[in-house]
């Protein structure tokens, strides 16, 4: 086994230090060391997207990264978006449109959509479906996720419902 390494990163704006084995997955680091269990693990082989977080603002799969690769960088997880009392507009749209059932995929989907909507603030349904195509949801059939995304985009653009 290899020697543990010290890493330091910012997660949701908070500085976090850790001594980790080089093989430790970023997803495991976030969930078990940083206690941010909103990042979920559905496959650990990069297909389901449940583990999606932002690394320096870009959506990445934290199960395909090692914690040491995040050293010195900025990570945002779903906990960094909003709180139960003050939901992020996209989270609110998911609630309004029933865009989640079991909610296991939801954090990863939100973290995929946040940078997508920054790049593409007024997407078509087709663009939304393409943006979502790397995230698996087994409960919703996607339709309400698509509608929630379109609604969230409107809210983020400042359009009233």
């Amino acid at each position: 086994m290899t020697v543990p390494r010290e890493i330091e990163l910012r997660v949701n704006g908070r500085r976090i230090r850790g001594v980790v084995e080089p093989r430790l997955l970023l997803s495991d680091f976030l969930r078990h060391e940083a206690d941010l269990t909103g990042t979920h693990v559905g496959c650990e082989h990069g297909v389901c997207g449940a583990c999606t977080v932002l690394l320096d603002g870009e959506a990445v799969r934290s199960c395909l990264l090692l914690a040491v690769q995040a050293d010195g960088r900025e990570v945002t997880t779903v906990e960094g978006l909003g709180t139960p009392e003050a939901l992020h507009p996209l989270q609110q749209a998911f609630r309004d449109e029933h865009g989640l059932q079991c909610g296991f995929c939801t954090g990863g989907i939100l973290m995929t959509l946040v940078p997508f909507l920054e790049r593409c603030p007024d997407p078509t349904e087709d663009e939304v479906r393409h943006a979502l195509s790397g995230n698996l949801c087994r409960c919703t059939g996607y339709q309400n996720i698509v509608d929630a995304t379109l609604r969230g985009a409107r809210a983020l653009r400042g359009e009233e419902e």
Partner: protein
Amino acid sequence: MSTRTFGRRVPRNEDPRLLTGQALFVDDVHLQGMAHVAFVRSPYAHARILSVDLEAAREVPGVVSVVTADDLGDYWQPGPLLVPPPPIAGCVFHPRTQVPLARDKVRHVGEAVVAIVAESRYVAEDAAELVFVDYDPLPAVVDLEAALEPDAARLHDDLESNLAAHVVQRKGDWEQARTDAHAVIHRRLIYDRGTAAAMENRGIVAHWDPRGQKLTLWDTTQAPIPIRNGVAAMLGLSENQVRVIAPFIGGGFGPKIMMFYPEEMVIPWLSVQLGRPVKWIEDRQENFYATTQERGQIHEAEMALTEDGHILGVRDVFLHDSGAYDPYGLTVPINSQCTLLGLYDVPAYESEFRAVFTSKPIVTPYRGAGRQHGVFVMERLLDAAARELGIDRAEIRRRNLLSPDAFPHDHEIIYQDFTPLTYDSGNYEPILDLALETIGYERFVSEEQPAARAEGRHLGIGVVGYVEGTGIGPYEGARVQVETSGRVSVVTGVGTQGQGHMTSFAQVVAEQLGVEVTDVAVVTGDTDQFHWGAGTFASRGAVVAGNAIHAAAVGVREKVLRLAAEELEASADDLELVAGTVRVRGVPDSAIPLGELAARANPMRGAVEPGTEPGLESTDYFGPERGATAAGVHAMVVEVDAETFQVKILRYVVIHDCGTVINPMILDGQIHGGVAQGIGNAFYEQLVFDEDGQLMNASLMDYLLPTALDVPRIETGHLETPSPLNPLGVKGAGEAGAIPTGALFAQAVEDALGDPAFEIREIPLSPKRLWELWGEWRE
């Protein structure tokens, strides 16, 4: 202010926590001193275990314990038979249940042989790599028909063959029907295996507290109470020493109710032995081997009809793949047998099945639970009959629908809940009409399809019907209490896996007590809160638990009225519950907040009179005498690319009748999700086993789940024929979306390809499989 919440799109109470990553799932449980488990699993489908060498694994730093079947001592027992066979005359059933860790023999790839406990999962897996198990491989039992040949390898040495069960059920006189028929259709139809693939894999955390002498279990189960009772019995603890918590569950769909998964037997034992918390979280690959699966059946079916397309009788003989063990009894094949009859009047029915042991993962119900197989057979026979008799597909269905005055309708065979299969209520023709109208059947057939064909496009339409037996017993219970804050708490035994119970159950209570839905806090799946009940299966949450909650809420309402009548010196008949208060009708000044009334009902001085109880609380139960039958019609328009055989769904319509609707938003979500799984089942997903019983596509890379690009927008419509079997009039809806999709796909794709002689007789399909079938047929 109106307090009616039924039928409204009430947003979900559970969402804020789920959306912000605050909801607790099993893998989020982290305890001081927790150890982690990895399992060594069989690489063979069928083999004798000659020896196990654990030396190297034990020496890995950080390994706490390494355990085999022998180490479990007397604790090693085959799991219980979860569902005994129904009382059907002549039924043969050989129960063989899974074991905590394999001893002597393994019977499917992925069967657990050794458990390794270590300080971290990483170390446990390192050590698992170092375990050497010496196997003597035996021939795998994969093919259902070959499994019953006399020379087939036997999975359970003490049985004479791989036959797990044999059941015959009949009504009417099939032979006579056959003799009287103008036409008899005969088809061989195949429905192959898939997996539920909930996004959350399974997991268990067990925490034995030696000082408190109490075991707490967090488990991704759909049935926390039976798990608690079983674990207590296995470990020799009393039931109140065991607390099982099924927190937020990341999708269930059936396989998360097994009782007991081997891991559910091993992990609690390890925690008690080691005196520390122990955690095991299934990884995705294990999920493909160690979580139960569903669906392998082969049917030989016949239908006898009159010249004008009326069904005289159906005979169906089928094989059902049980997998290596059959702890769930005959639930799935009985569902297939019973659901086959569908929306139709079938005077004579003869159905015979053999369940077969194979060296593949265990088969237990997965959303639909055998119903889609029956629907596939019936609907395919009707399609073939329509073609042979020259009758329109929708018309032949219409001619055979049960008429509204046929209810309750006794089919004279036994259902999975052991009662005679009886449809409680229904009105099917309006469902069919609305589906045809919504999808524009007439216009499609007469104009759109020919026009598309003229352009060289292959468009097709499908229309199929189904029933869903839902909400079976035995019972569920609930306790409803008004707290002094005015908030209402509800506890019930069922677990929740995304169905929105925390909202729909809150609506049931709000309806009775006149409070806001957001003021009702529902706790599900914690046996310390409520410990009577069975679990979430067979689309029974809303029906059985919903009605138990309703009964308890009615009890609280009565207490409120009685007490308020005294306080307000008014007749209870003149009172109303509005906006969290009780008051004399139309006299807002008289209003007493419910919280205040709750405080008065629990006095610090004075006596609670004999025969009364303190507080505004009530506990009640509901057990339906039998299941409620929901029904529906799905219709779809597809376009098939005649070169690549890719299928694009252009329209998808679901018209459904599940009785009274509590929350249409949640109901639609259930339908959408079911259809998505049905589409996966029909066109993307298939577990492919080779002749050695090896699963060839055990990853989400190779086993394709539908994505946002594959599932179309689904148009839903609801009719409401309330169930007379429960006060709320509800029927279950959890499986409706998934049941008819395979049959629908087959019909619509055939129609698109446009050659009346080309038939699809199997599910799942894929572009490749369609291309092969088309090629074979062309030859």
